[in-house]
């Protein structure tokens, strides 16, 4: 039992980290009333940036390269998401359509530049990916130590800490209150002097930053190179986590951990007595099936922010 847990928990944390980060991005965007189907594309851009930066600057930054790379992925993700913000906030475009376009554009640009720069469809493996570490002292604690602090990627902790930070920002600061107000009732917020467009821009750019970070972490922990099929569906699982977690940062984190569990079980199930005989496909589709069930209201109600997906046009009722 203990051995099983010891093989599962680090894998779960490993698979969940990118999902948690990207889902947090989704929470920020959707809480402000902008639907973000483009999370997948933001992850693609993040993965692309993380890998390219890592390949280019590995000599300059040495062992710090992966950390600098995910910072670069965050920044480029944020910049890329401005396209979605401009289309959906300023131009009142259909937010779902704009998100779909973001996804297409991201893969297009990523693979186009990969082919231009490396003359092939996928990049080389990076020299400086993230490696597992054991945290001194903490990993010595009996039982808990080996489960949670041994052979772990530090990025998993970054993701969990950021989830709590996001919760604090959204629910305990004036900024968070304004952001949520804009997503629930933009007209009331506007009347109270909150700049709706301004807040929504910030929220979408934050989602780009988190999505880019998530993509960067995914690329540098799980795959180590970039191609058109590096990110297949992780962004949509993150979107599912946003909904399954009822648009709450900690809920989204919980959902992402759960989906990470489903993903990692499909990888390690062979070694677990109970799950050996479950076909892998059931574990693969579990996140999606569960999300539909959650939406149908069988697992509590999942209510979206009231003004989610509705462009705010000043003066219209």
């Amino acid at each position, binding site marked *: 039992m203990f051995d099983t847990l010891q093989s599962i928990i680090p894998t779960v944390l490993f698979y969940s980290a990118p999902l948690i980060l990207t889902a947090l991005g989704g929470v920020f965007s959707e809480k402000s009333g902008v*639907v973000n*189907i483009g999370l997948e594309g933001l992850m693609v851009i993040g993965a692309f940036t993380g890998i390219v930066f890592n390949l280019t600057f590995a000599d300059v930054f040495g062992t710090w390269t992966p950390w600098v790379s995910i910072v670069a992925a965050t920044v480029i993700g944020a910049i890329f998401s401005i*396209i979605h913000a401009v*289309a959906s906030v*300023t*131009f*009142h*475009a*259909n937010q*779902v*359509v*704009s998100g*779909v*376009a*973001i*996804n*297409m*554009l991201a*893969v*297009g*640009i990523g*693979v*186009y*530049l990969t*082919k*231009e720069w490396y003359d092939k469809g996928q990049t080389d493996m990076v020299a400086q990916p993230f490696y597992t570490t054991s945290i001194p002292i903490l990993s010595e604690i009996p039982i808990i130590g080996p489960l949670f602090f041994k052979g772990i990627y530090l990025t998993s902790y970054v993701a969990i800490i950021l989830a709590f930070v996001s919760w604090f920002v959204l629910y305990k600061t004036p900024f968070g209150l304004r952001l949520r107000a804009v997503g629930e009732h933009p007209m009331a917020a506007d009347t109270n002097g909150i700049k709706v467009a301004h807040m929504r821009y910030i929220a979408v750019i934050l989602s780009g930053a988190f999505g880019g970070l998530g993509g960067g972490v995914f690329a540098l922990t799980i795959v180590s190179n970039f191609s*058109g*099929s590096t990110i*297949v*569906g992780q962004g*949509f699982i993150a*979107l*599912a986590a946003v*909904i399954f977690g009822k648009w709450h940062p900690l809920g989204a984190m919980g959902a992402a951990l759960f989906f990470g569990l489903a993903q990692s079980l499909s990888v390690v199930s062979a070694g677990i007595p109970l799950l050996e005989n479950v*076909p*892998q*496909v059931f574990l*693969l*589709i579990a996140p*999606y*099936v569960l*999300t*539909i069930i959650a*939406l*149908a*209201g069988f697992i509590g109600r999942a209510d*979206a922010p009231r003004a989610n997906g509705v462009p705010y046009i000043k003066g219209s009722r």
Partner: protein
Amino acid sequence: MTSNNKLFGILVPIISVLLGLIVGALIMLSSGNNPLEGYVALWNGAFGDAYTLGETIRRTTPLILTGLAVAFAFKTGLFNIGAEGQVIVGWITAVWVGLVIDAPMIIHLPLAILAGAIAGGLWGFLPGLLKAKLGVHEVIVTIMMNYIALYSTNEIIRSVLTDQQTTTDTIAETASLASPWLQSLTFYSRVHYGVFIALLAAVIMWFLVERTTYGYELKAVGFNRHASNYAGMNVGKNIILSMVIAGAFAGLAGAMEGLGTYGNMSVMSGFTNLGFDGIAVALLGGNNALGIVLAAILFGALKEGAGEMPTAAGVPTELVDIIIALIIFFVASSYIIRWAILRFKKEEK
């Protein structure tokens, strides 16, 4: 005002396509390629000879159908992002029927096509039902259904239709849409009879929406759900019906791939993108049947022509994906294009 709307309806897509191509040219310039060479290669790749023309038609065929699938749901105010999954289940079901049933062509072929359409329709039924009965947003449900379709289908190919192989056997000839006649006209491209089915489907969509009470109700529900309800229409029934028909169109697109182009199905690592491109087609075609056919031809030509770009001009094929994404942005942001046109007109006066 109506004449203005019609004008915009035609101008916005044209301007969007032009803007997309211009930005595409800028991207080629900034990455050190010659845009003129690139676009000449694109044109030759799509219309250069009989073979490429045939392949362009082949590519256009499923795009017409997925465009219809997205547009039909949109008429009822629903966003069918699930065309992708509906294509996949339509494809596998059509191939399945093509493999296991033994019948003369006159029964077998229609049966296989119909099976694809029904499978797609069922895949659209669930999101429709959830939307109608529980008010669950169809966008999220259809996205999730896409992945369920993808992974389940892969599993069916591996475990049910084959013994751990990645590609099914080729379907029986009695279920094939392949057309030796069309192929010989186009220097043995993979063009098949499906193109006529797609065009027929476009006519059916036009007829359903514009000439029947069913279509009138579907549109009414799309315009105003509450008013339709007070007028005595069954809103829930219309929502479900709309998603089922939309799903059937997408399922047909899958059947075209399975019975026409490939004659089999392989395990997929990612989506076909036919469904997502269908969104672009529907949007650019203004959700009407003729517009969709034209937009599908445009995107079919872009996608087919892209194949020529790396060899003839050194431009990666993905440039076309970028252009298509940009066109979607521009059409979706038509608010700003309308504003610009109006502004322009005012200054003229």
